[in-house]
């Protein structure tokens, strides 16, 4: 090993990240090379100086009472958690039977679409991580209006839904950004929320479930996919869109937030969808029921019922 080799791995040497054999080679070189020895010593001295300076800087030390206050808060939280656990465990056995029966039924219903749900959850987590947290998307996000024209008119709804300030029992949630972005195989309408000091992504995307699936599964918040790096996805499936929340919040907290934010949005998305698919009788004149009644006596109007306009 020569001087250049030593300089190249000097950082890893100092961090003790090298293989034992490589370490030995460096040490052998240092025994005979005063220049490299001086360089390594200088780097080690700077590293030690940095550590010492940081650890004893007066401005960086916590206030004396902070440790006690923190300890008391944590102790209370621990007691509260334990009591909650004990309380809930008493009901667990009773609830288990009911949940088991319901779970088997639901599992049968959901199992058919578990693979797509897993893929959707992965993309949702990827989008949250790379767009909301890191700004590292391959394709730049686009404004919702543009996305509504190019990809899905339902994204227009996200221009003002959910509202900028949302009140929840656990504190306010605030919208900090709205746009549309793409991750993996999915195009999302993306609303970024700030809630309890965390970043939460609300993602809306077209779901590919069939109409039969849509009827068979109620629109309830449920966890989809497996958590990844502490990030979970709670989804509410509408007739045409899935509305997901992604965050590192606890699952029950995320589910509760979904009940407040996602459910109303799913209903509004369904309204938009049904408005879009209603026969456009208003284009042709009187209400369709009136036409139906009239058509018994007006065969010439019956033709109107057989005209099915293409869906937008």
């Amino acid at each position, binding site marked *: 090993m020569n001087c250049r080799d030593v300089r190249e791995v000097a*950082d*890893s040497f100092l*961090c003790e*990240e090298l293989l034992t054999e490589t370490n030995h080679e460096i040490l052998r070189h240092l025994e005979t090379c005063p220049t490299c020895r001086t360089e390594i010593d*200088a*780097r*080690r*001295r*700077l*590293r*030690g*100086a*940095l*550590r*010492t*300076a*940081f*650890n*004893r*800087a*007066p*401005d*960086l*030390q*916590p*206030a004396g009472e*902070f*440790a006690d206050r*923190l*300890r008391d*808060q*944590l*102790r209370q*939280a*621990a*007691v509260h*958690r*334990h009591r909650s*656990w*004990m309380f809930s*465990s008493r009901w667990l056995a009773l609830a288990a039977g009911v949940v088991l029966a319901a779970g088997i039924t639901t599992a049968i219903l959901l199992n058919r679409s578990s693979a797509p749900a897993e893929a959707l959850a992965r993309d949702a987590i990827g989008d949250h*991580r790379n767009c*909301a*947290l*890191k*700004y*590292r998307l391959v394709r730049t996000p686009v404004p919702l209006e543009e996305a509504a024209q190019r990809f899905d008119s339902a994204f227009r709804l996200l221009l003002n839904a959910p509202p900028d300030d949302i009140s929840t029992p656990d504190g306010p949630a605030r919208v*900090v950004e709205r746009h549309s972005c793409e991750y993996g195989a999915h195009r999302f309408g993306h609303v970024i929320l*700030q809630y309890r*000091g*965390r*970043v939460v992504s609300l993602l809306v995307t077209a779901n590919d479930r069939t109409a039969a699936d849509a009827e068979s599964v109620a629109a309830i918040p449920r966890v989809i996919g497996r958590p990844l*790096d*502490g990030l979970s996805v709670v989804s509410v499936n509408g007739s045409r869109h899935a509305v997901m929340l992604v965050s*590192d919040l*606890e699952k029950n907290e995320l589910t509760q937030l979904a009940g407040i934010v996602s459910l109303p949005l799913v209903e509004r998305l369904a309204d938009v969808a049904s408005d879009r698919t209603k026969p456009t009788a208003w284009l042709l004149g009187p209400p369709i029921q009136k036409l139906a009644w009239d058509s018994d006596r007006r065969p010439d109007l019956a033709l109107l019922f057989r005209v099915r306009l293409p869906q937008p």
Partner: protein
Amino acid sequence: MVKQGAPHESDAWAAFEGEVLPHADRLFRLAMWFERNRADAEDVVQETMMQALRSFHRYQPGTNCRAWLTTILQRIVSNRRRAKGRSIVVDDPDDRIANTEPFVPPVPQDLTDELVLRSLQRLPTAFQEVILLCDVEDLSYKEAAEALAIPIGTVMSRLHRGRAQLRAELGATDAIPAGRRPNGEELASAHGKVEAS
């Protein structure tokens, strides 16, 4: 005797208190460095500890508790930056100075705490993070990569460039005439000389 399946409150708390709470001071220093505000730093540490408490059943005794806590803290700091609209990832220093590695002068002999910390503060935040985690907190490359949610290669490259730039800053700061910064005696009396290690 702890009942099977039911976590005993005092045992769980004792484990948490013994394993996690001793790291509160370290966490505070990191939080204070990045938040630059005592109240915010206390919020960050409190939130970190609360999350650690909630997730303590997932912590494996014998693994690096400091790295685990640092990962939680970094995620919280990152979320707060994001919420305040001061994300550091958009302006990636790896791209910005990929070909502009500074000349690396020798490490000054007369290193004071203030000189070292002032030079560190002049680096891009992404470099500060890696240097603090690897050199001060003594996290491994892998642990630092997990805490910062970046690849190991990026940790190594940022550490290399960050250390080089730190030396350049030390050299530049050291070269400033004595009248423009506190003299050696003032610094020594304020913070004490750094012992050579």
